[in-house]
C-alpha cells in the first residue's frame, strides 16, 4: 500500500454559463487587464488515498466523481495523482 496525494479540479462544462466566471472577467477588464478572457471559477478538492497502485486511485476518484463529487449535467473534472514519499 502506498499513500497518494490527489488534486481534483471541478469546473463548469463548456457551454454552461458560469456567472462567477463572467463577473470575475468583467472585474479584470475594469481593472485594465483587458487581455483576460474565458475566466472560469471552479472547485479545487485535495485528498489522500491509500492504495496499491495509481490505477486503483484513479478508479476511486472516478467512482466518487460519479457518485457525488461532480454533477455531470453542469460540471466536468480533471485530477492529478502523486505518490507521497516518506
Amino acid at each position, binding site marked *: 500500500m502506498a499513500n497518494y496525494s490527489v488534486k481534483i479540479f471541478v469546473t463548469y462544462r463548456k457551454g454552461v454559463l*458560469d*456567472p462567477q466566471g463572467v463577473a470575475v472577467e468583467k472585474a479584470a477588464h475594469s481593472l485594465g487587464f483587458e487581455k483576460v478572457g474565458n475566466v472560469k471559477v471552479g472547485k479545487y478538492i485535495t485528498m489522500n488515498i491509500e492504495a496499491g497502485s495509481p490505477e486503483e486511485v484513479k478508479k476511486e476518484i472516478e467512482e466518487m466523481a460519479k457518485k*457525488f463529487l461532480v454533477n455531470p449535467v453542469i460540471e466536468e473534472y480533471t485530477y492529478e495523482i502523486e505518490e507521497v514519499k516518506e
Partner: protein
Amino acid sequence: MKFGIPVYPGSNCDRDVGWVIEKVLGHEVRYLWHKERDLSGIDCIIVPGGFSYGDYLRAGAMAKLSPVTEAICEFAERGGLVMGICNGFQILLEAGLLPGAMLPNKTLSFICEFVHLKVENNEIPFTHLYEKGEILRIPIAHAEGNYTCTPETLKELEENGQVVVRYCSPEGIVSEEFNPNGSLNNIAGICNKKGNVFGLMPHPERASEAIVGSVDGYRMFESIVRSVLV
C-alpha cells in the same frame, strides 16, 4: 391523509410546510429525520427548503446521500407523490428524480421577493385545482435557482408538458425581463414524465394564508389532498 416532511441538518422550511398542512389544511404530518428509512403510512412527501448540509459541495449534493432520500427515491419509483420546494427541488435534481441542475443565479445574489408564475401544466396531482395559464404570486428565496439542462432534455420537458410553472410578468408575459435568476425558458418548476414528482423554486407554503400576503400557493397542497382522497 398523512404527509411526510424530511428534515436534514440545515432544513429550515420544514415547520412552515408542516404549519400549512396541519393548521391550514388540517391534515397529518410526520417529520422524517434524515437517518430514517421508514415511510410507511405516508401518502405524500414534501421535501422542504433550507440549506441541507450547508449546501456543501453543491446545493442538495450531500442530502441525496441521506438514508431518507434513498427511501424517498424508492417511494417515488413506486408512484408515490413527491414535491420538492426550493432546496427540496435542488435535492430532487441531485437525486436524479427530476432532470437538470441548478446554477448560481445570474445576478450572483440571493433573491428574496414575490414573483409571478404562470401555470403551464394543471394536469398533475400538485396543480389540478389551478386553471391553465393562471397567474400566481408566490415568493422565491434562493441563490441557486438558475435551472439548466441539456438541449435534448429541455426539448423533452417542453414537448411532454413537464414545465409546470414559469416566471412571468403580473400580466402573464413570459420574457427575460421577468426571469429573476436566469433559468432556461423561465422555468420555475418541473415534473417528471409520470407527473408524480414535482419540484419548484418558489415557496407555496409562504403564500398559503392571507396574513402573509398571498394565498396563491395554498391550492398546491389542496390539489394533493384532493387527488389522494378522491
